[in-house]
């Protein structure tokens, strides 16, 4: 009986962990992607001041959630997002439009991959 109770508790732990991580990942990655899209629009308009504020906001959000992403996804992928955010900051600081758009595409893809890996989907299942 003790074993069955332990198994039930573990099952609850797993369900809660998976649900929380799924909801949280979805929320944070959606927020990051929305901020990145807005950032791209401002860079396209040459509004570097707003773009600078936005990219630092992206960095703040990422740094806040960094440990969580390291906990649930491949460390190499999270480190790649770290690198992308730093490159984006550099591009915005020095007004390098081409480099910014190159890196923005890569950063968005990396964030999307983190979200995609956590989803309960057919490709992930098989």
């Amino acid at each position, binding site marked *: 009986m003790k074993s*069955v109770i332990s*198994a039930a508790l573990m099952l609850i732990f*797993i369900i809660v*962990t*998976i649900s929380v991580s799924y909801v949280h990942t979805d929320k944070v990655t959606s927020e990051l992607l929305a901020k990145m899209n807005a950032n791209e629009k401002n860079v396209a308009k040459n509004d570097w001041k707003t773009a600078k504020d936005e990219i630092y906001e992206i960095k703040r959000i990422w740094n806040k959630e960094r440990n969580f992403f390291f906990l*649930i996804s491949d460390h190499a992928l999270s480190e790649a997002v770290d690198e992308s955010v730093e490159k984006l900051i550099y591009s915005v600081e020095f007004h390098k439009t081409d480099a910014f758009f190159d890196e923005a595409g890569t950063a968005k893809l990396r964030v999307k991959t983190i979200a995609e890996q956590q989803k309960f989907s057919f490709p992930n299942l098989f």
Partner: protein
Amino acid sequence: MSVTFLRTIILYILVVTGLRIMGKRQIGEMQPSELVVAIMISDLATIPMQDIGIPLMSGIIPIFTLIITEILLSALSLKHRKFRHFITGKPSVIIHNGKVLKKEMKKNRFNTDDLREQLRIQGYTKTENIHFAILETNGQLSIIPKKGRSPCTPADVEKIIKEERNKK
């Protein structure tokens, strides 16, 4: 290095706790499903132990899932006989009244060399002396000898000595 050290300790505690929760059967003779779980758990634990690039959670969640599945299957097996037979299989009679049942042996992919080896290990040289030989679900061969054909035990020797003494 300190990370690897800590991760190893965490995973060790987790695996030992898991095996303790699964019960004593895991440590002794294993059923096929239990063997599979034990192998998978050990493998799952070693991957995040060695590679610090893999999140610890990707080792912990599958280990917990296997432990839960194993416990639930064991609990179900305890309640339902048919389910137990489905999971662990049924014992097979290999020798009946000294006669080797080839059909059963073939069904279990148990060859004559395996049978002879098992019989020798248990102290029997002739199949004629065996009433029943049963291949158990954990792969062990149980032998029930014919009356008066079982290997000699210290109690038997003691009985013979007593009889000899009484004769004198």
